């Protein structure tokens, strides 16, 4: 084969591979989204709840912790609320039940209080007034949900609204991995 043909063929293969990658790759949304934090120790978080109780993430080692980044005006956050309620109800019976925390993103305490007073949900709501927690987890848009294992490692990131049963399913997988 002439060198010119080999060259043309090589260029064609590279272009075809490039187009294939563009076609196959999808956006970063949904369950088990990549993050440099996955498999790493969770960032040290110290803040207060909207009831002024202190919160220190390192003190929650020994429990599964779920952080749900939330804003009361964000439609997907409102949409996922019933799923979170069901998740908390289902978790109540587990021997190693998850601790769910709402992390308030760019929202006022009163607005969050009103939302939960209307829609229920008695888990703690954490303040993030200067966005330090969102930055520490690399959260740019809400809702986002993160799972941290009892050893303090970040295990899962979910972008966007959590659909019904997704958290239960993911927790079952994580618990199975933890136990194996």
């Amino acid at each position: 084969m002439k060198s010119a043909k080999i060259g043309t063929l090589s260029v064609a293969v590279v272009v075809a591979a490039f187009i294939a990658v563009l076609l196959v790759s999808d956006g970063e949304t949904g369950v088990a989204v990549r993050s440099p934090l996955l498999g790493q120790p969770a960032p040290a978080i110290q803040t207060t709840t909207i009831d002024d109780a202190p919160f220190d993430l390192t003190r929650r080692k020994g429990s599964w912790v779920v952080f749900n980044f939330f804003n009361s005006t964000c439609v997907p956050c409102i949409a996922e609320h019933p799923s979170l309620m069901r998740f908390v109800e289902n978790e109540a019976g587990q021997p190693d039940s998850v601790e769910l925390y709402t992390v308030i993103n760019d929202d006022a305490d009163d607005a969050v209080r009103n939302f939960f007073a209307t829609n229920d949900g008695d888990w703690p709501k954490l303040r993030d007034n200067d966005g330090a927690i969102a930055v520490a987890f690399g959260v740019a848009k809400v809702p986002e949900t993160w799972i941290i294992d009892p050893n303090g490692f970040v295990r899962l990131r979910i972008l966007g609204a959590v659909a019904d049963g997704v958290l239960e399913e993911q927790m079952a997988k994580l618990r199975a991995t933890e136990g194996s």
Partner: protein
Amino acid sequence: MLTRRRLVWVAIIVVTAGLLAFGAVRDTGPLTQQDRIDTITKRIACPTCDGESIYVSRASASQSIRAEVARQVGDGVRTDDEVVAYIADRFGGEVLLLPRATGVDALIWVLPVVLTVVLVVALWLAFRRWRLASATTTPVQVASPSQRRRSLAIGVVLTVVVGVAGGALVARQAGQRLPLETFTGGIEDSTASILAQARLAGPSDVKTAIDLYSRVLETDPDNVEALTYRAWLVMLSARQFDEALRAQAFASTVTALGRAIQIDPEYPDAMCFLGIVVYRDGGDAASAKEFVDRCIERDPPVQVRGLIDALATELDAELKP
């Protein structure tokens, strides 16, 4: 002897390499805190908008990152590159407005230089061939096939070496080379990381866990978690040995847990462990109950609560008048 034209080329190459080397190692001197914040925020892209740095963006995420950058610059602990690396570790390499000078990103800097060098060499070879072909008066010396192959191989290797070296220099000069970067990026081996590794190791590998907690205490003697869990593991592992060793471990564990509580009176884990140790190894139910009650009041994590729920009932039964 070098001709004048070749001397000019050599001079150009030396000056270019010298300038690149100077640019790569130069120090711009101290900046004010605001200068540093501006410089850093201009290097980071807004994660929720297109084509904007967080320096200009008004998006909520950009404001949070700017606040974090200002906080870290104010703390004065991290360098500019370390602050950028912190943000990139959280949001991913996509937020770097300048591609990295390491890993796969470095190809962005290296490939154009390699291609330029290859093209220049190819052009030079083509011009040389045309000149030789047109110079009919000059006798052309025909090389043997093996000589031609050797010359070609040397030429290819030299071209690639020069191209890659030039590309690496450009990458070093223009790209982001962030601290602690590995091929895939990484997060520093911090105290938090060692503590998490220790958690993972113990209680199945008690020795490793104790070593890791000791490593933390070397640099941070008041680390409450390391003090508490090292003491707890020491006591657990001592239970399989003789009375004398158990007594020694008991004394050191009670001291360490007492110190942890003194440092952080709100840490429930230390109180629960102290309650367990005081009762199971010291036989003092009244003191144990006090520690267990204080621990429960402070909402211990699930794993610790699992250790004391049964004990609390047992203590209530024993202390019932």
